[in-house]
């Protein structure tokens, strides 16, 4: 039983948009297909008449560094991200999150754009892109524009992008500079194939002295219905001295402000609450240490 009738491989964004428009809602965008094909097979997504494969659009699968800014095409795979030395050094959390997704086959075809478009509250790559304050290059309602990544999410699995009409073209974010560092860790079970129980990415900038947090961005998911920043936790740390005391303050604010929920067979809210604390204790010191030393070696990527 075929999951679709027609399959297109446009070479340009315009061509893709024309194809989608022509099918009037009966076509869907596909990149790696690691989520979409399962969703169609399980009946969570209706069988489309056509699939529009965007991975052959010129430039959509490339990484481009322009000074301190990194641009990623939406069709860049998890494996490409993991293999990029600049990202390992200067966007470490993204490499760490993309490195734990699925198995090698999934990382070889699954794309960062697909991860974001799927709009799960705990998409690994998404969690790190939020911490890196990424922007998305999209065609929304026929208008090509840059939007903050967080503006794309409506609810669990619901994106502002209509995948029968709109297009996610790419991302950009600032690479870590001096006194900046990032880290990502997740709780999962078993190691590898399953959706995470909880993931946490943090980006940290220290002040000139290296002793205080100048700024932070922390994304923990799934906590709310969309990928979101732990703003109260960030706020309590800004300007304070780096160290165990600060981490414990962050933990106690997280305890008061973050309310993870139970998912039927993945984890209870109580366990997730505890793991928010464990992850903060592991991720914050690591990100701060990377900011202090300017050195970062991604942890937990692929087989160890």
């Amino acid at each position, binding site marked *: 039983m075929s999951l679709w009738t027609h399959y297109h491989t446009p070479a340009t964004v315009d061509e893709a948009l024309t194809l989608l428009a022509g099918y009037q809602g009966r076509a869907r965008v596909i990149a790696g297909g690691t989520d979409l094909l399962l969703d169609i097979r399980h009946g969570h997504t209706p069988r489309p008449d056509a699939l529009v494969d965007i991975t052959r659009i010129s430039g959509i699968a490339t990484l481009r560094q322009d000074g301190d800014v990194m641009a990623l095409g939406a069709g860049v795979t998890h494996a490409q991200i993991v293999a990029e030395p600049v990202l390992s050094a200067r966007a470490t959390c993204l490499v760490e999150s993309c490195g734990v997704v699925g*198995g090698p086959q999934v990382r070889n075809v699954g794309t960062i754009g697909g991860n974001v478009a799927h709009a799960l509250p705990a998409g690994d790559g998404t969690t790190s892109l939020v911490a890196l304050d990424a922007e998305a290059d999209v065609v929304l309602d026929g208008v090509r524009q840059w939007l903050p990544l967080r503006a794309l999410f409506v609810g669990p699995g619901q994106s502002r992008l209509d995948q029968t009409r709109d297009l996610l073209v790419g991302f950009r974010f600032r690479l870590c500079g001096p006194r900046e560092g990032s880290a990502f860790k997740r709780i999962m*079970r078993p190691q*590898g194939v399953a959706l995470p*129980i909880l993931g946490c990415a943090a980006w940290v900038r220290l002040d000139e002295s290296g002793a205080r947090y100048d700024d932070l961005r922390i994304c923990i998911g799934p906590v709310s219905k969309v990928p979101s920043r732990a703003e109260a936790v960030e706020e309590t740390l800004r300007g304070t001295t780096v160290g165990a005391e600060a981490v414990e303050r962050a933990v106690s604010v997280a305890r008061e402000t973050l309310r993870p929920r139970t998912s039927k067979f993945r984890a*209870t809210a109580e366990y997730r609450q505890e793991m928010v604390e464990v992850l903060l204790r592991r991720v914050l010191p690591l990100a701060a240490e990377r900011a202090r030393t300017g050195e970062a070696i991604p942890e937990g990527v692929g087989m160890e």
Partner: protein
Amino acid sequence: MSEKELLIGQSVRRLDAVGKVLGETAYPGDIDMEDQLWMKIRFADRVHARITAMDTSKAEAHPGVVAVFTARDVPVNEYGLGIPDQPVLCGLGSAKEGADIVRCISDQVALVVADSEAAAAEAVRLIDITYEDLPVITDPEEALKTGAPQLHPHAQGNILTHYRIRHGDMAAGWAQAEVVVEGVYRTGAQEHAYLQPEAGLGYLDEEGRVTVVVAGQWVHKDRQQVAHALGLPEEQVRIIYPAIGGAFGGREDMSVQIVLGLAAWKLRRPVKIIWSREESIIGHHKRHPMTIRAKWGATKEGRLVAAEAEVVADAGAYAYTSSKVLGNAHLMVCGAYVIPNAQVDSYAVYTNNVPNGAFRGFGGPQGAFAAEGQMNRLAEALGMDPVALRAMNVLKDGSITVVGSPLPPGVSLDRVLADGAVQSGYWERPDGQWRRQPVAQPADPARRRGIGMALGLKNIGFSFGAPEGNWATIELYGSTEIERVVVREVGADMGQGAHTAFVQMAAAAVGVPVEKVELLGHDTTYAGDSGSTSASRMTFMAGNAIKGAAELALEKWRAEERPAIATYRYNAPRTTPYDPETGRCDPNVSYGYMAQFVEVEVDVETGHVHVMRVVSAHDVGKAINPHLIEGQIEGAVIQALGYAIMEDVVTKEGRILNPTLSTYLIPTIWDIPQETKSVILEYTDPRGPWGARGMAEMPFIPLAPAIVAAVHDATGVWFDRIPLTPERVVVRLREQGLGVI
């Protein structure tokens, strides 16, 4: 050395290796016939309900649909390995009364046969069924209570089976007990998760026999059950297994066999079915969850003097092999030890859950989880080394077990324990005293390492008086010398390599290289009944049959018969069932003995348990093919690791909430031990072919209690419930003040 001696003990390459690696081997789903139709099954929509009306007209009118079958189409509408307590199809108009009730979501209600799989899938949803809900009961302890809904007329109080053991004098035993440990042990359900979901093809063969091509574990039993339901003589039914994609006990009961036979017989056309993973997980049984209450006593020197236990097993909605599995758990709950005074009561209880049944270890893992848990706690309470405590109490040749009889000759537990402990590297015995090496701890204080061990025994062959034996035929072709050997032996090779072992043993028995031997297997028309591939019995039983047939054929060869053909049935020594009052019996033909040593790392903050290393020591009697044995050890260890740590069938009101492999989590390459060391020991089994014992279930059995002991060693906390999901671990650790900053 002769050719014979050279072949036994060699890691002959698997006969199926090249085909499987190249993807050329055909499994049931890969086989097609011209003019074939496709079948889809409508499973029960309710957990426990009476069907009051069924309208199939919309399905029948759907384009492409050839036929819809319901309960009224099944000639003898019942089946079951233990007792025929399940309708083939639940619904109205059944020849057997009472088939209008569905008792679990695995019940099959209707079949749609169409000219395409898509048409069958669409039409099967169009059948309108009206149900009248009945009270659902999913907790076996609740099902035992007075006033609980009764699920089957033949099972008073929902009790399918109750066994007893009354051995020695309990009052005297407890009077001698200076140290007593008690525990309540709970084990979870487990899904077989074989690579190949159920599939098959039914057709009429050239002789008009109803033929089913399917993956199973026992061609003759499948034939009997298909014939029974269709009301046909067994000779009118033929079962063929192509390559089988794993089984582990999960293919012992019927899945698609009867319904394929029924449709092919009615339509006189080939009919094919392939189950999805979800259909597989919902459509076949699971490992029995059990609750075991145990109380053991010992003298302060460590000698066991008394044991009491109660076992409650959730049978699920139908009998399947529950009585047999319970029988084994009932025996194993007292472990591998001399216990002069013992009292055990075990119950298999009907509920509306998916049926529970055969799964590698067959009640042994549940029994060992309690027995070895008790021994490890007793060692702690006595301040004794766990190896030393076991060495003092293990059964030896001539020891009387709790069922009043000795084990069959060739008991090697003491040597398996000692050899395994030393080869694990974790224990030493420099001056006759067992001592454990200290374990190196990681720098990160959240990660704690620990070491644990457990041992066990497992029966080989059918137990408790069931007739046990195996037919084989050997045909010798040639004139002056034997040019070709045909061995007819239909025992199932589920992927473990049984066929390779058969050929190797036939070659050794006749005295020719393996290249000269051809196997005719997996077809009821080729040879007599082999019994099932289960109970770690196939090497033992088929080996004895092949050896016997070869000896007879060689006699004929020497008498100048050409070809020289001999058929032989190996009859195993008789066993006896439990005495209903005392449990006294001579339960088994033979046993395998094993001990496991495990190192774990526990993340006390997240509750993740990682098994770093497993040393698995086994008395296999004689290793016919060492590589195949290592494959079984490594596979069983990983499967048992899943059972102990992560595999969790999540149910709500009798429905499985995680019927996919993205939500029912089995170990991946990141979860398995960095090292699994196989210690293969060869203490001859006087009853086994070339001294061999069965071994394929054994590495599963002690792993969970060994892991629990290692987690205790790492954290100081005992766990009495598996799987050790991170949540459960975190809750218990926090209660003990661990992992909190």
